[in-house]
């Protein structure tokens, strides 16, 4: 369980308390400036809280050695920048940095991550030759290579077209089914409604709603947070938002 208890970060988050369970996909949604990325980075242990705490199985993250924390929580920032024109396999290999394991185990973990993201045909290609969707998969494979219990990704679907979004969210769902905790910042409310098990709605640094998507993303919440009169159409799992 990854928990935030009264988490406050000056000017960005205010008294956020959430309990995230592994084995499911949690989506963090909210308007621009709501504090989604801040919450995700704080859950990854990358931001020192002003008050409150983030705990992993009841241990405060700040007390975990950085390498230990890195082995348990994988984090994919929004920027997706990579400074050098690495080959896919080299990039994915960076995910092994927190581990002090032998070459064979590292190789297996990298091969696994590449297979999970269906990147085998691209493994030796340089990043500059990949399309946006391939690059997003390669970046996520880097996180998987660490074999973390938790996967925290900041808008991993943002730059992708619909088909690639669907493919990637299915991969992430599979990972959650295997027992990992998956936490995503997403902008697309329909994506959160149809694919997340649990949704956190943030607005101006405060937690407005949390729960199963149909509750947390009710039309009332959308009206209150986004100032939009919207209604959900369609069947569960295939809902669309009509404005």
């Amino acid at each position, binding site marked *: 369980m990854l928990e935030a208890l009264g988490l406050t970060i000056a000017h960005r988050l205010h008294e956020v308390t959430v309990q995230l369970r592994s084995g499911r996909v949690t989506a963090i949604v909210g308007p621009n400036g709501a504090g989604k990325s801040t919450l995700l980075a704080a859950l990854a242990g990358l931001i020192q809280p002003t008050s409150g705490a983030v705990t992993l199985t009841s241990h405060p993250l700040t007390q975990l050695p*950085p390498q230990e924390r890195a082995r348990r929580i994988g*984090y994919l*920032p929004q*920027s997706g920048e990579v400074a*050098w024109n690495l080959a896919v396999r080299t990039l994915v290999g*960076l995910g092994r*940095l*927190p581990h002090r394991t032998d070459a064979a185990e590292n190789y297996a973990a990298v091969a696994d991550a590449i297979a999970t993201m269906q990147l085998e045909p691209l493994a030796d290609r340089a990043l500059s030759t990949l399309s946006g969707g391939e690059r997003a998969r390669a970046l996520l494979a880097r996180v998987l290579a*660490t074999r973390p219990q938790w996967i925290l990704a900041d808008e991993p679907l943002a730059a992708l077209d619909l088909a690639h979004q669907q493919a990637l969210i299915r991969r992430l769902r599979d990972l959650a089914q295997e027992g990992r905790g998956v936490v995503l910042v997403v902008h697309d409310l329909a994506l959160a409604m149809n694919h997340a098990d649990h949704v956190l709605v943030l607005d101006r640094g405060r937690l407005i709603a949390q729960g199963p998507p149909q509750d947390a993303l009710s039309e009332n919440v959308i009206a209150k947070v986004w100032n939009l009169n919207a209604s959900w159409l369609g069947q569960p799992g295939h809902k669309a938002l009509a404005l």
Partner: protein
Amino acid sequence: MTRNPTAILLAALALAFPLSLFAGQVWIDPFGPPVPNATAILMELRLPRALLALILGSGLGAAGAAMQGYLRNPLADPGLFGIAPAAALGAVLSFYTGYESQALTLPLFALVGAAGAMTLLALIAGRSGGIALFTLAGMMIASLAGALTSLAISLSPNPFALSEIVTWLMGALADRGWHEVRLAAPLTLLGLFALWRAAPALDALALGEAAARSLGVDPARLLGLMVVAIGLIVGSGVAVAGMIGFVGLMVPHFVRPFTDQRPSATLLPSALAGALLLLVADCLCRILPLQGGELRLGIALSLAGAPFFLRLLLKLRRELA
């Protein structure tokens, strides 16, 4: 394209090192007639000089590769931290005080200058570990040290000191001996060791600062390692040879295409290529027929380096366009 340039560079060094010993104003042909004082020339002049080229070149090459990794910028150079100009200022002050005749004073002054710059850097940017702040602090120190050096030159007590200062600032390996080898070797080795410790963190940094921290990198520790490493390598280099630029900028570009591009993978090849570059460049300086003595190594490398830098800029501009 080979994936491992290390073996080729080692072979080239093994070939170039003995050859460099034979070249100079007095050519020594191991199979020819005996040259008077050949042993003295080899042991007291050429061997320490060649060793210094290897030490300084390897240090500067690896430092350049590490700086480019640390700043995630292929145009970065060890000089960006302002440590070289600060070391030069220290050395110039030793001329100014007229103590340079004592063999130890000049390098000591230079090392004090380098240490001063390192302390200042740590004080300004240390706690946050932010890379942008750090680079700006380095540039500020570089321009301050440059201004103070100019001041020291303009207030020079006599024309002789002035010419000494100006000549010395144009780095060279001429007339260096075992004394300089003993000073530079341990400091450079320590610096290389610090870079080796920093290497995995430099790889993680390729993904950006946030991702690097999520992979367990401690930015403050990395910054400390970088300051110590660059300070030791550049400080000891300036202390024994004056200002030698462009090695750290150029060398990583030669070797990077032959590696998998991770900063850690470029460290060792850059060290070897830097050693080779300095060895060959110093050799060429020695044998070029030039009126009024030999070409200064610092000038030669700047003459070669500036066009290289320009070409690099144009190439990057094309890639960005």
